[in-house]
């Protein structure tokens, strides 16, 4: 099997605080891979090692390897900016640029990185908005500002912004934590549509969401990888007692 992401003895420290403890994880190409665990287990930290965003935190130190499609992104010769071009990221709070229009929000990455000739950008924006299942709702108001969108629409706009860059991997850090149930359902349906073409890593604190949308799931607890496997297997018959307690709501 080909792996989109592979960590080898991954350790992360914030100062003297050891938050990820020797994790070996293999994330297969294409599909939804959920990282679940209680608050503070290290799942968001781990996600941030997959695009070297963790380095923006000055106290963070990473040891071990993270391989994207076989290449260790922590090698000295690797430019983190290049890594981030192939790894899109969506955060818990929808963060479109408020001063840019809907259109500009999607086009901005392409323009700044000069990824496409100018005349091809409108086509790519439309493609990305369609991929993000937002086109029909915004096609007549592309010059409007994101403040006039609902929370769920803003989040899909952010997803469109990420998709416009044609990444191979999409990292999502609790993308529905602040979205209403209808918006959440739309984003979950979108994940289902996208997973045939992208490797999606979804951080969630909700075992129910991991069960609904993921193909594989890993359970992290206190910085350690406790269990990983196909979602159906982990939710029907977890191997580890801690996983059993977590998914049944008996932990803590």
């Amino acid at each position, binding site marked *: 099997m080909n792996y989109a992401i592979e960590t080898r003895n991954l350790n992360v420290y914030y100062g003297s605080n050891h938050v990820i403890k020797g994790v070996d994880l293999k994330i297969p190409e294409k599909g939804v891979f959920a990282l679940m665990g209680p608050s503070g287990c290290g799942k968001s930290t781990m996600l941030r090692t997959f695009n070297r965003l963790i380095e923006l935190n000055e106290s963070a130190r990473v040891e071990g390897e993270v391989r994207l499609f076989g290449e260790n992104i922590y090698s000295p010769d690797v430019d983190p900016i290049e890594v981030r071009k192939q790894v899109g990221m969506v955060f818990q709070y929808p963060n479109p640029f408020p001063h840019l229009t809907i259109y500009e929000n999607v086009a901005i990455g392409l323009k700044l990185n000069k990824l496409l000739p100018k005349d091809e950008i409108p086509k790519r924006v439309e493609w990305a908005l369609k991929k993000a299942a937002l086109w029909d709702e915004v096609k007549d108001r592309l010059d409007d500002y994101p403040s006039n969108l609902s929370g769920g629409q803003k989040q899909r706009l952010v997803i469109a912004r990420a998709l416009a860059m044609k990444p191979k991997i999409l990292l999502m850090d609790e993308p529905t934590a602040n979205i209403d149930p209808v918006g959440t359902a739309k984003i979950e349906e979108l994940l289902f549509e996208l997973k045939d073409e992208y490797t999606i890593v979804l951080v969630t604190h909700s075992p129910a969401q991991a069960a609904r949308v993921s193909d594989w799931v890993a359970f992290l607890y206190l910085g350690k990888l406790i269990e990983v496997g196909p979602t159906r297997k982990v939710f*029907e018959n977890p191997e580890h007692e801690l996983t059993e307690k977590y998914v049944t*709501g008996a932990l803590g």
Partner: protein
Amino acid sequence: MRKLLDIGIEQMKKMIGEMANGSVEALESARKSIEGDFDSTEEISSRLHIMRSDVLELATELLVRYSPVARDLRFIQSAIDVSYDLYRISRYAMEIERTARIVKGPVELSKKAFPLTEEAVRLSVDAFRELDETLVGRLFELDRIIDNYYLRSLEALNENPEKAADALIMRHLERISDHAKEIGARVVYIIEGRRI
């Protein structure tokens, strides 16, 4: 959240326990019928039919409300199956009584197999009640023995058509033992997540 699901599962255990008592009672009643003492097996079976619907309703409610997973999910899935097994056991017991009433003839093999079948049903309901998989091996052994009696009853029928009652009753006992074995398999599934 956790506690509410636990309350539902406890209630389900109680319902399955009542169904288990009913199926044992139905089988005892069927045994008496082959000795000429006809009782209320049909009534017991009708009661279990209603109880099975109640188990299904509760299972649906728990699935919808709490999205159970892991052992909770395996228990609820299994309780649905076991409620069906117990209902079928009572139904076969009822059929035995009807057969005994209508078809006359010697029933020697059935008389031998009856206590073994009752043992199988009792063991299966104990295994499920206590979630004790150590009892499952004996269930499989009993199923083999009872199956053997059934085959012998068919062979005997070949030689002597008067043994039809024995073969018909043995057929029901074999099915009952099969359901008891299935209940045992469910116990293993709940505990280990392994389907046998």
